[in-house]
């Protein structure tokens, strides 16, 4: 045998290792670990989760369309990950603070983002799409995994103050290879920081499969850092919500960090800039279409007699309205004046930059009256 240098474990396929409440066919399974955390979730709340997922999918589709139409420089689709994002984010309390990656459109939606917030950064109008203090969500992070450390630092502050808050951070499977993510787990464990790590294992880091990042289920790493973890079916919104409630309760109770690996799938490209047909096959995609998170919840609600035509049409109308508002906000954005490029670099005057600002202002002024 020659030395094995390619990944051998196919963690991508170990889907049965994940905790779930709703099976892919929409049937409900007893789960003694997770059920207590969602015992209060009634049909009305399930319809609300369904509604949020439909709206998120519509927001995401609109983002892709706006990029294709040249209105956005880039968009990072999250189709397929609706259950993970909505299920976990809906469990987070208003006073908690979230440190997301760039793909967490559903998380900022669940935190109350305005229509323009989804596109402002991708359109290139501002460095951050939303007001961090209003949403209690840090700006979307593009450097892979950097935000996990920020969440731990924030959580350390919470712990020092004894505040009833938790910091939450989201990242992908690719990020688990980053030093920062591993350092974040060490620091969180060392200080017993009230932080929840949510790994959205969507199976692909651009073209690199999850098996290249991890030869072992990702949630299995956390206990090695002293952090309890759960591996949940990320396309099961109920399981995601239950897992997140478990993790938040754990952190809020002063028992330190908790870790969730949500096993899901990114149905589209990594961003609008890549072509997934070059690196993954149609059969894999098709197998995940059969695990669609929205269809799964629909099946469950329908079988339970809880899915009315009225709910479906109302939801569709709500989704269309959000998309329309998002498009209007996007197209209506006014690019700031040239001198705005200098705004906000420093909190206090900086003579070096102030001089450049003055020079550029004089340069711009030199055009006035020139024609």
């Amino acid at each position, binding site marked *: 045998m020659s030395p094995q240098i390619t990944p051998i474990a196919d963690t991508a396929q170990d889907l049965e290792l994940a905790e779930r409440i709703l099976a892919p066919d929409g049937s409900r399974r007893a789960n003694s670990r997770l059920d207590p955390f969602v015992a209060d979730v009634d049909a009305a709340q399930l319809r609300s989760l369904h509604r949020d997922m439909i709206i998120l999918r519509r927001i995401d589709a609109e983002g892709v369309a706006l990029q294709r139409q040249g209105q956005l420089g880039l968009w990072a689709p999250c189709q397929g990950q609706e259950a993970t994002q909505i299920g976990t984010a809906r469990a987070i309390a208003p006073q908690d*603070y979230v*440190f997301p990656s760039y793909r967490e459109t559903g998380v900022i939606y669940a935190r109350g983002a305005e229509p323009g917030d989804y596109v402002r950064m991708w359109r290139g109008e*501002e*460095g*951050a799409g939303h*007001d*961090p*203090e209003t949403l209690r969500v*840090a*700006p979307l992070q593009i*450097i892979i995994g*950097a935000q*996990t*450390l*920020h*969440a*731990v*630092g*924030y*959580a*350390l*502050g*919470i712990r*020092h103050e004894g505040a009833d808050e938790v*910091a939450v951070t989201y990242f992908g499977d690719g990020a688990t290879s980053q*030093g*920062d993510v591993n*350092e*974040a787990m*060490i*620091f969180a464990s*060392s200080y017993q920081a009230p932080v929840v790590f949510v790994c959205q294992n969507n199976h692909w880091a651009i073209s690199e499969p999850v098996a290249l990042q991890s030869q072992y289920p990702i949630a299995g790493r956390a206990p090695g850092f002293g952090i309890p973890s759960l591996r949940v079916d990320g396309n099961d919104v109920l399981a995601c919500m239950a897992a997140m409630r478990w993790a938040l309760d754990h952190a809020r109770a002063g028992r330190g960090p908790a870790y969730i690996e949500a096993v899901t799938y990114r149905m589209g490209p990594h961003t609008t800039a890549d072509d997934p047909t070059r690196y993954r096959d149609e059969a894999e995609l098709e197998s995940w279409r059969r695990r669609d998170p929205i269809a799964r919840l629909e099946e469950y609600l329908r079988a339970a007699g809880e899915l009315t035509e009225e709910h479906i049409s109302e939801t569709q109308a709500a989704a269309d309205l959000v998309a329309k508002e998002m498009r209007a906000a996007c197209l209506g954005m006014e690019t700031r004046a040239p001198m705005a490029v200098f*705004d*906000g*670099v*420093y*909190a*206090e005057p*900086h*003579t*070096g*930059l102030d*001089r450049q600002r003055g020079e550029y202002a004089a340069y711009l002024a030199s055009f006035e009256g020139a024609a």
Partner: protein
Amino acid sequence: MTEVTLGKALGAGLRQAMRDDDKVVLLGEDIGKLGGVFRITDGLLEEFGAARVIDTPLAESGIVGMAVGLAFRGYRPVVEIQFDGFVYPAFDQIVAQVAKLHYRTQGRVKMPITIRIPWAGGIGAAEHHSESPEAYFVHTAGLRVVAVSNPEDAYRSLRQAIASDDPVVFFEPKRLYHHKGDVDLEGSLADAPPMGLARVVRPGTDATLITYGAMVTTALQAADAAEDEGISLEVIDLRSLSPVDYDSVAASVRKTGRVVVAHEASREAGVAAEVIASITERCFEYLESAPLRVTGHDIPYPPAKLEKYHLPDLDRLLDAVDRVLDRPNSLTGADV
């Protein structure tokens, strides 16, 4: 006035800043019980407790990344990077996170983080313990960069850095940690000159010698030696490398017309290059000769036994002074 070492002055500055504002927290490796490998944080754990003097795991990116999160929460973290050469693993967190978050959020998130770095060579240290990485940070918008050269400045500038709403990379010349000087430990920050101002350490008329950090000491020695030859050198301590106080620099250049800029860091795209370019833009017509750089060579920091050939010394400074004054020098030869 109290005579203290530069190291003690820094410790006193940290203590005062922590007393002034309970949002000031310290983070770093070995800063608690040990008091830091240079003992700068000595006694602070006892006074302020482990919640404010935080010993960390050995991960520089983690330390700075944690500071970012604490800043989000409204704290004023002061990070100690144990040695200059250890800052590189934290480079992303400093240049892509700390430096940019205020700009990205249009000022809605402040990063009042001070990153203290025991810095530069001349102490016969092991590899990675003598680096001069200041140009990387000067080149990064959103950061302020300070380099101190004496106890009084160390005490005052550190408190100013911590009080600043901007992130400050704060360089401490470790070969001066034991140098003593008078410090006004009772002085109010309100009365102190701003952090960004340069200082004329020694007035002169024939040429201006501009430097910072431990090289200020060497520059003053050069000025003494030059005086013996009847040459009057003005020595400027930049103190702040971002921003550079070009008003003070230009005032001196207009007076002397001749300039030497010196630092330990390598030459290529270094601070001296920037300072000379800016001088040329601002006061070209006052220059009597081409400004010169005296710097470390463009080499990795050499082994300790060779560092004396890398670090600009008195003679290399004086040779450059001879050149800008058109006196016999290493290029022209003594016989010319």
